[in-house]
């Protein structure tokens, strides 16, 4: 087995174990449910135990399969080709773009948050002419904002609205 294949096996083993752990979480959560006193209703536990048990059995079986070297085939990519090596930098950029978008949205408003999102995602996927990209990002965000708020009457945060304290979010 080449070193690359071993690495893939390790990753898949971690992921399959994660699915297994997920089944334990579901089963554990189900045992923690308090039975309702409602008579006649079937307990919410029954179905949840079924789901947790199913995932438990299947992922345990799958872990054995991975250990025997039966690995999954990565999915193909539409409009391009899949590489065998992961591009962590691009992936990190897209994840940060999403995180930034969510964090900025309530404070700086939709237009700025979306400009950042569009810019970073396109940049991560290979568009390097940043000035042109920046202009397109800003223009598109403005069009989307006014399209959705004016034409579809959706309520998107405009931002910089200091008359209203903490616009949308309660703490969680």
């Amino acid at each position, binding site marked *: 087995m080449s070193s690359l294949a071993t690495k893939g096996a390790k990753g898949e083993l971690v992921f399959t174990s994660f699915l297994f752990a997920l089944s334990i979480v579901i089963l554990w959560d189900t045992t923690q449910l308090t039975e309702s006193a409602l008579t006649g209703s079937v307990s919410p536990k029954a179905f949840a135990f079924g789901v947790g048990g*199913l995932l438990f059995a299947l992922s345990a079986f799958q872990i054995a399969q991975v250990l025997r070297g039966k690995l999954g085939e*990565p999915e193909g*990519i539409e409009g391009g080709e899949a590489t065998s090596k992961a591009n962590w930098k691009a992936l990190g950029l897209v994840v940060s773009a999403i995180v930034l978008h969510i964090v900025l949205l309530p404070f700086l408003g939709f237009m700025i948050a979306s400009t950042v999102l569009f810019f970073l995602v396109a940049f991560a996927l290979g568009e390097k002419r940043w000035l042109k990209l920046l202009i397109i990002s800003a223009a598109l965000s403005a069009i989307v904002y006014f399209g959705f708020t004016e034409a579809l009457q959706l309520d998107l945060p405009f931002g910089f609205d200091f008359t209203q304290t903490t616009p949308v979010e309660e703490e969680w």
Partner: protein
Amino acid sequence: MDYNAFLEGFANSLTLTNLGFGLLGTILGTLVGVLPGIGPALAISLLLPITFTVEPQSALIMFAAIYYGTMYGGSTTSILLNTPGESGSMMTALEGNKMARAGRAGAALATAAIGSFVAGAIATGILALAAPFIADLGLRLTPADFFALMVLAFGTVGSVMGSSPVRGLISMSVGLGIGLIGMDPQSGAQRLTFDAVQAMDGIPTVIIIVSLFALGEALYVAMRGQMGLSKINSFAGRASMTREDWRRSWKPWLRGTAIGFPAGVLPAGGSELPTFLSYTLEKKLSKNKSEFGHGAIEGVAGPEAANNANAAGALVPLLALGLPTSATAAVILVAFQQFKIQPGPLLFTEQPVLVWTLIASLFLGNLLLLVVNLPLIKVWVKLLQIPVPYLYAGIMVFAMVGAYALKNSTFDLWSALVIGVLGLLFRRYGYPITPLILGAILGPMAEVEFRRALQISQGDYLTLVSTPFSIVLYSALALALIGPPLWRKTRGLRQNTN
């Protein structure tokens, strides 16, 4: 059949507004089919916000038109670019692209479009005849029967999709797990919410679909994608067929319809399987076997007819039983629910005009697609020149708007990110996505029927297998799960002895 409602529906579909939304849907659908990275399920999820402002009839007509339209659009990219714009067009790419390279792009595009039209027309006709009948049958089903139906769907969708049945079934169970999240409406118990107030209502279907298809895909492309415009096959002149092309196409169209429609009605989870079956069948039956792999027109005609018939077929269980069998049908179900309309056996008696308007619009949309599609092929080709980074960035912005607009809450956006990462991992390790979505949507519905059945029987689990219908379904499921590996094994043995 209720002829008055049928006629009223047809008249309704001809109003200017409804025609307009049908046309808009066909164009949007084709666009979505042409562009890589966005399929019908994602497109309709992103357009769900219009349900706040647009009439139910118009919105549903548009969504159904998008579903049909993507099947048309996908063939264009497969033939001209060799990159299928959606998964149902994978088979078309095999022969269609070879035909285009040999300078027969026009014939390939024409047989795809006309085949789609023929299949769409026949399949919509069968839908109109069969759906009321099945709805009637649905009225007589007990909760235990419905539960069996859904278990069958879980089993077949899970085991049919993806590279191995276990992977598909795991994907399905993860979906069922996501479906558990939230407050149980019957007992008030909170499952898997971990005391987060925002999780009480569960994870909305739109969030699940948007994050798996848009975020998951973009993350995966960032991690693994090597983007670059593939060469577009030149296409000059008109999309038309010779007499010989017609002679070779009409049988595959009909056979494709015959495979695609039932595969849509049954819970087989989308258009991959029927298009594959149709392709294999045409290859087997063709007199020009040597042409396969070098541009055989039968290999385009069959699968293209199959995927359109499949889309129509999937609407049968959706409208008549309220059961979605593909990711797109599941989103259309959500659209119905946004309007407080529940598809299912009662739909045909409670909303006859709406149903018939929708079905009539499907006929019209199918016709519009044929008229709109062929002359506009050059426009679609232009669209393919949008650079991929802009495409994915745009999809991402729309996805986040769609996710946020649901409840104006950033909690939904965080859940979208988490599920998006799950989508990335599923793609990386070869797990199919569709079973997860169907599990998350059908799971809560299955639980309702499960409880109803047990309530009636006062907790006796034997009630689940007490009707002939449910016994037949469970046997069918057992056969579907155990049959193929058993068959492979015996065949392997026989080959060994030879």
